[in-house]
């Protein structure tokens, strides 16, 4: 009875998130460079900023976050194809880790000492999300640092803007100047751009082969999601300031949750790479997109652009773009050498 009542309460939120995810999938089908997950999220942010009353969505959003994020991560794992990581060169692995550190350090320093954004949680969330896989990473990081809706909104806006700026800069500014060959260009896309959809788009400007290489590199970056989530939690605890410290019990439950979702993610990845189930990877893809689209939509629905500080939002976005520029310069330099 209790479960039926909960489901009844969750139904409006589940329907709205499903519709947003489905709509994203349909729109993405119209043009190959558009990403279903990104569109579902964008639609949710717009709706979340328009809606004045959201209480009818709370339970559905809760179900999406508690149940669909773990399920979505398992399904995400089924899509990463660990076997292909064998084709990645060692320096590309090292660059992925180095870029992660650059994103964190540059965004933290600029936000803290130049823009005077004193809430370090925004910087850590922004750095981690840009380094891993943008919006999806943000959705996973929220419980690890107990992020507030305005912090999430600021991070998500900076990811969207940085993503769009970087994808066009990569193809229309950087590539005409440096003229990278296919392999290097694909690695550059996979190493520097934040959203998987944008990696596909930027590599897709060159060729389908470039997309495959770029996505393999990007999938490796995505696999760092849980270690980075735990790193974020400790960074936020140690350097976040007294005001932002997470209570001990919450921190403990976040670690357990981290281990649990890491098990699901890598379980999905291993199961769908080394067993006969690997043949079903493509048939699972639409289900993955709908489920993960719903989780991203649930995060987006809680955002409200009107309620966040516009100055902070712009500055945070600016620091994220600067960090991408630094990452792009370092990556280009190493690739060219």
């Amino acid at each position, binding site marked *: 009875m209790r479960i039926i009542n909960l489901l009844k309460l969750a139904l409006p939120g589940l329907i709205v998130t499903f519709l947003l995810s489905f709509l994203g999938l349909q729109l993405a089908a119209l043009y190959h460079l558009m990403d279903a997950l990104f569109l579902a999220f964008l639609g949710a942010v717009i709706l979340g900023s328009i809606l004045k009353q959201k209480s009818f969505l709370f339970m559905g959003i809760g179900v999406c976050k508690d149940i669909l994020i773990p399920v979505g991560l398992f399904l995400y794992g089924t899509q990463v194809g660990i076997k292909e990581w064998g084709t990645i060169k060692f320096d590309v692995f090292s660059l992925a880790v180095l870029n992660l550190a650059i994103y964190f350090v540059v965004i933290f320093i600029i936000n803290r000492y130049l823009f005077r954004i004193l809430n370090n949680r925004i910087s850590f969330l922004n750095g981690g999300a840009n380094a891993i896989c943008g919006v999806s990473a943000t959705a996973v990081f929220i419980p690890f640092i107990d992020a507030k809706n305005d912090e999430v909104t600021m991070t998500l806006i900076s990811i969207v803007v940085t993503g769009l700026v970087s994808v066009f800069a990569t193809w229309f500014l950087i590539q005409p100047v440096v003229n990278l060959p296919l392999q290097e260009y694909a690695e550059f896309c996979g190493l520097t751009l934040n959203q998987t959809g944008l990696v596909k788009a930027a590599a897709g400007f060159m060729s389908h082969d470039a997309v495959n290489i770029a996505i393999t590199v990007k999938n490796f970056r995505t696999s760092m999601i849980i270690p980075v989530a735990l790193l974020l939690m400790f960074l936020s605890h140690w350097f976040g300031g007294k*005001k932002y410290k997470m209570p001990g019990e919450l921190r403990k439950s976040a670690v357990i949750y981290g281990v649990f979702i890491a098990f699901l993610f890598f379980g999905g990845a291993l199961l769908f790479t080394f067993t006969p189930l690997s043949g079903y990877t493509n048939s699972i893809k639409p289900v993955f997109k709908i489920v993960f689209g719903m989780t991203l939509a649930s995060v987006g629905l809680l955002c409200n652009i009107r309620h966040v500080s516009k100055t902070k939002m712009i500055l945070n976005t600016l620091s994220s773009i600067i960090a991408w520029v630094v990452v792009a310069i370092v990556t280009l330099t190493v690739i060219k050498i």
Partner: protein
Amino acid sequence: MAGRLKQIVDYVKAKAFFKNMAVAQLNMIVGFNVEDFTEETPDDPELEQKLLEATSIILRSNSVDTTIFKKERL
């Protein structure tokens, strides 16, 4: 004094298996987003009582031992 409302929300998050669903239930009972509470949210005895009652329903306990909020941080 401030921060007690956030402490109660943190308590629910720490104790519930499905944290977000539990917080959503709290939201529905009190009528607004309790996740907006921060350490600086001023204490409100009336709202606190309402939250504690909701917490005991959500965590399916007959009552919540309020002394834990006074004696120790979670």
